């Protein structure tokens, strides 16, 4: 009864600006000294005032337009109040009843059943990120918490969907597509692990008889696609179980616990928290002129769907390969970089989608951080094309390139992996193989053509694959005729 599942998502994406949303501090905060990227504004020191970063509005508009939203021409920033140490002013500057954009949608393609489905976007708004808290504990008891405000004031876009998602799988497909789009737009790097893209989910189970929406829970702390899938699966199962037992789902916020593989209770939402929103008096209403919207529309870059078409035309790739290459922006970028100096596109695509993705996945490394650069891969493929190494050896070399970051040429040189092109050397090995397998030689001589492949295989085994199979085949034929 998958269709009774009702999921809505709230996604926060960090916008790729150089400076923060209301001040000129750098946004390059990850792995920096704590509190080294702050100023009176993002520390909320008394007397400091916010000034909006124009680039934030531009990136927000780009996203809203790509998600087919209606843009509100007058935007108001609101203060959202709550006390927490990561919030230096006692309020977050966010948007409330006049957000940047409303009423959008994103179409996703589902495989089972095969269908295109529209997920509606309720709203998109701009806001500032909070600082980061580290909780120190000893024997399960809180010792103290440490506050780092480097992240305070990083520009965020909150994207809220309607509860149109009907299964955890759909949620994943939606998020992957959304991530793909924001990466293509260059508005966010879409990294769930580092937190530049974060997702909370609201889940409920629709009552079977009445069709009424059930009580929803909110799930937080899901830091990867895998976590999201597992958390949503778990929560759907948990709610179903409760309902089957005749128990009630209570309105609460739950946290995904990666270790136990469960969602655990955080706080009740029975009484809605009062954020005491009111218009931020330190900022003027933001007016968005039609000409600004038009200008941004014109500059929206190529999105995945268009890129796929182009890959099929320009590189003669199959729809399947093109689709897989554009699915993640850096993957397509990698392909295009390599394709500049290598024109066997099909072969290139196979290596990227095969070997490269395999090792990246195994080591859990992002495409951008691939130890094998596009030009390094091209270097390897050219060695194959020049018959310096066999495909089999190339795969071996690739693994070492991935591990050491060294170029194919260097690795091949050092390991003596070059093909034995010296006929004399191979001839010696062939003689041994022929001597040791007289029956097979006999079979071939009596017309069993296929028997020769066994002999070739034996030679390859002796040379550890370093011989060129065509050459071996010809040489064996020659020797046998000689006999």
């Amino acid at each position: 009864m998958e269709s009774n599942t009702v999921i809505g998502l709230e996604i926060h994406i960090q916008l790729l600006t150089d400076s923060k949303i209301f001040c000129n501090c750098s946004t390059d905060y990850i792995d920096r000294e704590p509190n080294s990227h702050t100023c009176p504004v993002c520390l909320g020191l008394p007397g400091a005032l916010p000034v909006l970063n124009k680039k934030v509005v531009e990136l927000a508009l780009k996203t809203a337009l790509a998600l087919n939203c209606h843009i509100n021409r007058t935007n108001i920033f609101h203060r959202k109040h709550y006390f927490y140490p990561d919030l230096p002013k006692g309020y977050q500057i966010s948007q409330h009843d006049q957000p940047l954009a409303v009423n959008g949608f994103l179409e996703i393609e589902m495989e089972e059943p095969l269908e295109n489905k529209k997920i509606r976007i309720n709203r998109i708004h701009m806001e500032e990120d909070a600082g980061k808290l580290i909780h120190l504990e000893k024997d399960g008891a809180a010792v103290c918490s440490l506050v780092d405000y480097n992240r305070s004031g990083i520009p965020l876009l909150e994207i809220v969907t309607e509860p149109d998602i009907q299964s955890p799988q759909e949620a994943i497909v939606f998020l992957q597509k959304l991530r793909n789009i924001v990466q293509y737009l260059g508005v966010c790097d879409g990294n769930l692990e580092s937190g530049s893209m974060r997702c909370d989910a609201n889940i409920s189970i629709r009552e079977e008889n009445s069709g009424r929406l059930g009580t929803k829970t909110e799930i937080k702390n899901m830091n990867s696609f895998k976590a999201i899938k597992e958390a949503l699966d778990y929560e759907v199962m948990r709610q179903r179980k409760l309902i089957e037992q005749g128990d009630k789902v209570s309105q609460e916020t739950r946290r995904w616990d990666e270790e136990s593989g469960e969602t655990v209770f955080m706080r009740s939402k029975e009484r809605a928290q009062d954020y005491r929103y009111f218009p931020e008096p330190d900022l003027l209403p933001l007016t968005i002129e039609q000409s600004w919207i038009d200008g941004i529309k014109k500059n929206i870059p190529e999105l995945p769907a268009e890129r796929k078409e182009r890959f099929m035309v320009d590189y003669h790739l199959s729809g399947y390969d093109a689709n897989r290459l554009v699915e993640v922006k850096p993957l397509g970028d990698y392909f295009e970089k390599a394709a500049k100096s290598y024109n066997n596109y099909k072969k290139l695509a196979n290596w990227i989608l095969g070997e490269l993705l395999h090792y990246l996945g195994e080591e859990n490394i992002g495409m951008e951080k691939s130890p094998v650069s596009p030009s390094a891969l091209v270097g390897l493929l050219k060695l194959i094309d020049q018959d310096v190494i066999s495909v089999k050896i190339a795969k071996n070399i690739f693994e070492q390139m991935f591990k050491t970051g060294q170029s194919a040429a260097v690795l091949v040189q050092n390991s003596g992996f070059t093909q034995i092109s010296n006929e004399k050397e191979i001839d010696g090995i062939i003689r041994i193989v022929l001597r040791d397998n007289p029956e097979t030689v006999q079979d071939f001589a009596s017309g069993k053509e296929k028997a020769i492949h066994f002999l070739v295989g034996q030679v390859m085994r002796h040379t550890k694959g370093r011989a060129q199979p065509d050459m071996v085949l010809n040489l064996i034929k020659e020797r046998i005729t000689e006999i």
Partner: protein
Amino acid sequence: MVIDEKMATVKEIGEVARSAKLELSEEQLKLLSEQLNNTFSFFAKTDKWDAEKIQFDYHKNLTSLEHYHEDIVKPSLPQDTVLGMTRCKKNGSFEVPGIL
């Protein structure tokens, strides 16, 4: 004075104080709720207006021009200056009571 459901009770004011992270004596809370109710009665006079039709456009003298900052990075405060304002610090961070 009509006792209205909109009248603030001492209990309600107590809750509001708590959400503003302030502690007040019962007596002070009582005084506050009286003051609030006076304001409310005074304000009730304005109920006769069709308030919905009245727009508010704050900072009206100022709306015509753009107020943005360009997306360029300027120097931040040095870490020791930032932490120099408090004695409660640890490992380059501000220290607060433990939260689990």
